């Protein structure tokens, strides 16, 4: 069934920070636009990264263009989206064995890029970060911070929607309708309703990030993307007050980013076949822990909560200037500066623009450049205002770690906690449900439900209980009543996927307690498939092959990228 759902001026493909920033920029310039996203906002790279609000210092030595972009956008984001930011600063620490020459280049590079640095003695650095390794020699303070990409996405999307644009999640693009050298419509599939739809449009923006190549393929234009996978490890507690970087050439395990109550260790860099490859090899987890423990030794004996991977959206220009990814391995050498591709000149498709590369910190600027180009082509004269127009919620100010605790204390709301680890109340859950959220996954992204050390052990079923309070949709017979246990099982399996490579010690005890609750007390067994791995202590997978967290094709069961709903035979 194929209905023309909408007519609009611009369709933006991709619900990551780039796409949503584009949508917002268009909205502020009065352009009518619709964004389509295959799962939920932030389920691509924007939701699979370490959350660093770049000061740019990491690029100061080798890539000063990137560095300058970062610090400029860092400043702008603090102005327009402070509520998504943890204003905690960062350190670059010099450990014994690090190249002091690099440190000198670092300082010079920051200066040249306009990044303010502050040199700290070892003692001063440890006063700021009490858990720093005792053998840190020197440190440099930089204006790093933490940024919550989902909060940023929600804020930008809300702003765009209230100005008349639309965001359609769970609408993957299935193809384009072309008429000669123009795209006339975008074909999408509504995953929730299970229907195909068509959106008529005059312009298309491909902001699909790491998947830009796939969108390009559907449109008949070649875009060569390299998926630069990085693994990140989540520690169960925060360890650091601000960001801690190793002062050396970017390498594996050289950054610790505090994100709310946890610390994220990052990262690796490995070229993989597809951005859908989110498998986490245990050896990478070990490497992250060992490397980051050089900076903060307590991490070595700390509790690892989970690990995840995401692909950097690296663009390899068609012009073979040999600057592309050096065959296979380390993708750090590929430039991270973004590129706007105007397919009119490039490929003879006059109304498609793609935006590729870049990083989250510069998403606003990426959008500005792209929308400037598009506006010119469209004849829109409104200038870009995204650098000055604050986002909804900005008056809240930067996020402070103690804030959720302060709120619960102020309201004496301890009796209403649904997610105890993250201090999420029943009121918050009900408000989100009233707002249209109907999946535990959505609640997780919106409210951080299930993020804490118990990985949803207690909140999952409380939240499922609240969801079950809704009146059943549709008729009382047949498909009327919702499947709350299926949703609960799916959510638990999604939480599980991130834990397989990281479970030992405390987390193993947590996992078995959780199992004793859901399987032991509640007698939930999921699909009921017999599990061969249970036989005789055999490893469930051989390390390095057939990793179960790998997604294969369209099998997206219980994946953190969003719900697959109405497929027959869904388990």
């Amino acid at each position, binding site marked *: 069934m194929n209905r023309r759902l909408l007519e609009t001026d611009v369709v933006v493909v991709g619900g990551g920070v780039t796409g949503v920033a584009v949508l917002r920029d268009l909205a502020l310039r009065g352009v009518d636009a619709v964004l389509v996203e295959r799962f939920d906002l932030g389920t691509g790279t924007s939701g699979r990264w370490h959350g660093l609000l770049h000061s740019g210092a990491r690029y100061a030595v080798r890539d000063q263009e990137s560095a300058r972009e970062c610090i400029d956008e860092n400043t702008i984001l603090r102005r327009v989206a402070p509520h998504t930011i943890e204003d905690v600063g960062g350190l670059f620490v010099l450990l014994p064995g690090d190249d002091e020459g690099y440190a000198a280049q670092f300082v010079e590079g920051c200066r040249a890029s306009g990044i303010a640095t502050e040199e700290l003695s070892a003692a001063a650095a440890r006063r700021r970060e009490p858990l720093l390794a005792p053998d840190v020699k020197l440190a440099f303070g930089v204006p790093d911070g933490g940024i919550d990409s989902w909060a940023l996405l929600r804020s930008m999307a809300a702003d765009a929607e209230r100005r008349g644009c639309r965001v359609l999640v769970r609408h993957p693009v299935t193809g384009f309708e072309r008429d000669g050298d123009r795209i006339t419509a975008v074909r999408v599939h509504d995953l929730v309703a299970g229907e195909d739809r068509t959106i008529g449009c005059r312009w298309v923006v491909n902001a699909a990030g790491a998947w830009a190549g796939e969108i390009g393929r559907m449109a008949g234009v070649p875009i060569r993307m390299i998926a630069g996978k990085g693994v990140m490890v989540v520690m169960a507690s925060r360890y650091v*007050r601000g960001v801690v970087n190793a002062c050396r050439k970017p390498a594996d395990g050289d950054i610790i980013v505090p994100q709310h109550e946890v610390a994220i260790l990052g990262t690796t860099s490995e070229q993989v076949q597809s951005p859908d490859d989110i498998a986490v090899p245990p050896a990478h987890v070990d490497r992250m822990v060992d490397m980051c423990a050089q900076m903060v030794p307590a991490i070595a004996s700390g509790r690892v909560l989970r690990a995840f991977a995401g692909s950097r959206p690296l663009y390899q220009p068609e012009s073979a200037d040999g600057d592309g990814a050096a065959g296979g391995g380390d993708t750090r050498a590929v430039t991270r500066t973004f590129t706007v591709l105007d397919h009119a000149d490039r490929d003879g498709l006059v109304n498609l623009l793609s935006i590729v590369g870049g990083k989250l910190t510069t998403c606003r600027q990426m959008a500005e450049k792209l929308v400037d180009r598009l506006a010119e082509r469209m004849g829109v004269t409104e200038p870009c205002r995204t650098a000055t127009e604050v986002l909804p919620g900005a008056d809240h100010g930067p996020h402070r770690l103690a804030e959720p605790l302060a709120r619960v*204390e102020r309201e004496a709301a301890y009796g209403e906690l649904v997610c105890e680890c993250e201090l999420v109340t029943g009121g918050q859950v009900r408000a989100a449900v009233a707002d249209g959220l109907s999946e535990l996954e959505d609640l997780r992204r919106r409210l951080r439900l299930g993020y804490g*050390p118990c990985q949803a052990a207690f909140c999952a079923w409380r939240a499922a209980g609240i969801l079950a309070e809704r009146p059943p949709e549709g008729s009382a017979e047949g498909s009327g009543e919702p499947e709350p246990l299926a949703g609960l099982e799916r959510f638990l399996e999604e939480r599980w996927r991130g834990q397989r490579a990281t479970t030992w010690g405390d987390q193993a005890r947590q996992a078995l307690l959780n199992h004793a609750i859901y399987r032991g007390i509640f007698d939930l067994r999921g699909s009921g498939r017999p599990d061969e791995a249970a036989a005789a202590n055999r490893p469930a997978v051989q390390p390095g092959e057939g990793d179960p967290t790998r997604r294969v094709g369209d099998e997206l069961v219980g994946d953190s990228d969003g719900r697959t709903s109405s497929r027959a035979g869904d388990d």
Partner: protein
Amino acid sequence: MLHVEQTADRCIKCNVCNTVCPVSAVTDLFPGPKYEGPQGQRFRAGIDTGDSPDRSLDYCSGCGLCTQACPEGVLIAEINQVARSRLVDDRGGLALRENLISRPPLMGRLARPVAPLANLLMASRPFRVAVEKTIRVHRDAPMPRFSSTSFRSWARRHRPPAATTRSVAYFHGCAVQEFEPEMGAAVVRVLERNRVRVTFPRQGCCGLPLISNGGFEAGRALATRLIGRLRGAAGDPGVIVASSTSCGMTLKAKYRELLGMDDDATRSVSQAVYDICEYLVGLDEQGELDRSFRPLQARAVYHPPCQLMAHGIGAPALDLLALVPGLQVEQSRAGCCGTAGTYGTKVEKYQIAMDVGHSLFDQVAETRPDFVVCDSETCRWHIAKATGLPVYHPVQVLDRAYGAQAVV
């Protein structure tokens, strides 16, 4: 971050701690150890310590039952205590009330010359009402009786017996020194009966009341001084016995856990400390305890204080009391008597303390023993007030059973 704070990592949210907390059981002002301890801790570890929001934290009594029950080794009560100290720091130090009630040596020294008058005042209702309105110590909170003589003045005059086979240093604590010198005398008699020579090294307050109220810096000053004075005894005679089980606990573990004191002197002192009952049971295990107790035809309820259980030695008093012929001892089923040191004396916490102790008081009322036995002095005063019965340290019972005239 202290090691104590890092143990928050081990929490698996299993709720065991919430099942044993005596405070959250009786009031909804305290949301339980899991919320306050490992859960809240994750939100305190940031740079913005200036906005510690923890109002409910103040209701933690520090009894430590949660730490004991936790199967994962989270030092829950200790996490709360550290958080409280940061709260106190943020507010610029201890409030007047906490400052006053946390300094028993000060109160004792001031009152000693006028002890009978001081005791009269403490028993006078109008005076207590005035104290409640000004300092906010509850009018009905039990107060120890001031003594005209200090324990150390008794110790100075005391002549040790000739035939002793070993020596211990006695850490008597403020309660014995200022309020109950006769208790200290009983300790010495019992030890000497067992041919132990008792020395009285220069000491001082262990700082527990300050520490438990969050005054870590003031507590650290006292701790450092005390360690300095006891370090000699830790080497020779190598055993320091403590008759106040909470002060002994402080020396054994709290300096390390809460104040981060990890030097050789602190370590050697903490490893040399024995609770007096622990020490006597140790003698018995070597066959060296004088078991010639006279019969005591009496019934008693024994309440092991929560602070005693935190030593990890069980309740050695039970083994000792079992040696006294005729003495029938029933064990208390309560985990905490409610007072938790100075906690129960505060106007806003007194009723909570009474409610926490309720089941113990009921058990005593049902059992109708001749007396109650308990190793910790603040517990003794609290239980005595609530039940109207005499409450003794186990050593006082042994002292009587050895033939002493006084007290029991």
